[in-house]
C-alpha cells in the first residue's frame, strides 16, 4: 500500500506535465509497445522473424542457382514481413474496437486523428525494423550460399529503396484497413481477398488494363524484383494511393464522426 498514491493534486503544486499534451513521438512509442505487448502481436512478429529465416534458408539450401543472389534472397526474406505485418497493422487499429480499448485510448488522447497518425508512424518504424532484420538475414544467407563474390552481391540502390517501399506501404495499407473496418476479422479477410478479387477482374480482357493500375498485387509485383520503369512506378503510385487513401479516408471519417461505445 502506498499512502501517497491517490494524493489529490490540491495537496501540492501542480506537477509539471499535467497540462502538457502528449507529443507525437511519445504516442508513437506507446503504439509501438501496443503492437508487441499483446499475445497476438507477439506471436505475429515472432512468425515474421521465423518465416523470414525459413525463406532465406530454403532459397540458400534448395533454391535454383540463379536465385542465389542477394537481390532474390532479400526479396524472399522480406515476403513474410510484407504479408504478415499488415495484419499487425490491422490489429493495432481494429483491436481498439474489438477489444474495446478505444474507451481507454480515446479518454487519454481525445484528438482521435492524432492517435491514428501515431499508429501509422509506429507502423512505419516497425516496417523499417523488419526490413533491417530481413536485410541482416539476407546478408547472412547470401554469404552462406555463394562463392561467386562479384556477381551475387550487386544490388542497385533503387531496388533497395523499392524493398523499403514494399514493406512500409504494406503496413500502412493494413492500418488503413483496420481503421476503415474497425473490426479485426473482416479487415483481415478483406485485405487478403480484395487483391484476389481484383486479379479475377483483371482476367476479364476488357478490364485488365485498368486493373494493372488499381490492384497492388499486379502494380507492386515488380517492387522487390527489378528496378521499376517510369510506367511501372506510375502504376504502383496510383495503386498505392488508392489502397492507402481510400481506407484511411473512410477510417478517419468514422473515427472522428462516430460515437464510441
Amino acid at each position, binding site marked *: *500500500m*502506498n499512502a*501517497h*498514491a*491517490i*494524493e*489529490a*493534486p*490540491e*495537496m501540492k503544486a501542480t*506537477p509539471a*506535465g*499535467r*497540462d*502538457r*499534451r*502528449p507529443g507525437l513521438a*511519445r*504516442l508513437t*512509442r*506507446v503504439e509501438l*509497445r*501496443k503492437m508487441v*505487448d*499483446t*499475445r*497476438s*502481436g507477439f506471436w505475429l512478429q515472432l512468425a515474421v522473424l521465423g518465416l523470414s529465416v525459413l525463406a532465406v534458408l530454403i532459397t540458400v539450401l534448395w533454391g535454383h542457382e540463379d536465385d542465389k543472389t542477394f537481390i532474390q534472397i532479400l526479396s524472399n526474406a522480406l515476403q513474410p514481413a510484407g504479408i504478415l505485418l499488415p495484419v499487425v497493422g490491422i490489429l493495432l487499429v481494429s*483491436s481498439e474496437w474489438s*477489444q*474495446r*480499448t*478505444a*474507451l*481507454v*485510448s*480515446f*479518454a*487519454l*488522447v*481525445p*484528438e482521435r486523428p492524432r492517435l491514428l497518425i501515431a499508429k501509422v508512424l509506429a507502423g512505419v518504424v516497425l516496417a523499417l525494423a523488419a526490413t533491417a532484420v530481413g536485410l541482416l538475414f539476407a546478408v547472412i544467407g547470401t554469404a552462406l550460399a555463394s562463392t561467386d563474390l562479384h556477381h551475387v552481391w550487386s544490388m542497385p540502390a533503387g531496388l533497395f529503396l523499392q524493398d523499403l517501399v514494399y514493406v512500409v506501404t504494406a503496413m500502412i495499407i493494413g492500418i488503413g484497413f483496420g481503421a476503415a473496418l474497425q473490426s479485426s476479422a473482416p479487415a483481415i479477410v478483406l485485405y487478403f481477398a480484395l487483391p484476389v478479387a481484383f486479379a479475377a477482374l483483371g482476367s476479364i480482357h476488357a478490364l485488365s488494363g485498368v486493373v494493372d493500375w488499381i490492384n497492388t498485387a499486379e502494380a507492386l509485383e515488380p517492387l522487390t524484383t527489378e528496378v521499376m520503369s517510369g510506367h511501372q512506378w506510375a502504376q504502383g503510385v496510383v495503386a498505392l494511393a488508392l489502397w492507402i487513401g481510400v481506407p484511411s479516408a473512410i477510417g478517419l471519417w468514422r473515427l472522428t464522426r462516430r*460515437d*464510441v*461505445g
Partner: protein
Amino acid sequence: MIEAEKLTKRFGGRAVVDDVTFRCEPGTVTGFLGPNGAGKTTTMRMICGFSTPDSGHAGVLGGEYRALPNPGRRVGVLLDASAQHGGRRGREALAISAMTMGVEEKRVDDLLGLVGLDRPAARKRVRQYSLGMRQRLGIANALIGEPEVLILDEPANGLDPEGMRWMRGLLRDFAERGGTVLLSSHLLHEVDAIADRLVIIGSGKIVAQGSKEELLSDAGTLVRADDRAALGRALAAAGLEAREADDGGFLVDAEPRAVGAAAQGGGVALVHLAPAGDAGLEQLFFDLTSDNGKEGEE
C-alpha cells in the same frame, strides 16, 4: 468539478438522455443511480467526449473534456472495466496508460498495490481476470495520472463486500482531499454505501437529486398500526397520500407530525411512526425500476 446542463441524446428518435442537469462539486462523491437503460452510461460518455450531445452541454473542470491537453492527468475515467485488451498483461495495460500521459512507470507498481492486485495477478493476461479484478485494474488505470476528478461507470459491479468497503474508503479519501467523484450504479445499496450525494435517473430524465439527507427527508413517513384498515381510513380522512409499504405499513407523503395527528383523529393506536429514510429511498428507486426496468440494456 463536473457539469451537465440540459444534456439530451437521442437514438433513433427516442431520447435516451433527456434534459439532464446536475453538478458535482469538489470534495463530494456523487452517486449516479438508475436502472439499467436509464441513460447513465450515455450521460457519462457525453461528459467524457465519447459521444456528442444532440443538445445541451457537458464539461469537466470548467471546460470540455476533449479540450483538456492531457486529460488523464486531470480526470480519471473508468467507462467499462471490460474494455481492456484480453491478450495484454494487467501491469502492461497500466504501463501503457502511464506512458501515454507521461507518468513514471514505477507508479504503476504503487497503484497495483493500492488496488490489491498482487504480483501474480498483475502478470496474468486480462482475459483471465474476474470482473472484480478488472474493476480494480480499471480503478488503478483511472488513478494513474493523479487526477482531481474521477468518473466511474458501475465500478462496484463485480466487487465482493470486502471490495465494496475498500472502494468506499478509497473514494471517500479521494473526496476528502478535494477530489470530485461521479460514480454510477444500478443498485441502491452500492451508491448508498459510497456516495454522499445522489442523482437519480429514470428513462433518461433526472427524477431526484440532492444530498442523501435531503433525499431521505423528502422520502416521507413510514407508519404502522395493528389495525391496518383503520389506519388507512384515518390517513384518507386527513387527506394524506399514502401507499402500502412492503412491511405492512404505509408510506405517507407527509411529515411524521401530520401523520401522527391523522392517526389520533382516527383513534388509531400506532406501533411505528418515523421518517421513511432508507426505506423511502428504496421505495422511490423501486417505483423507478418497476416503471422503467423493462426497456432493456444501455
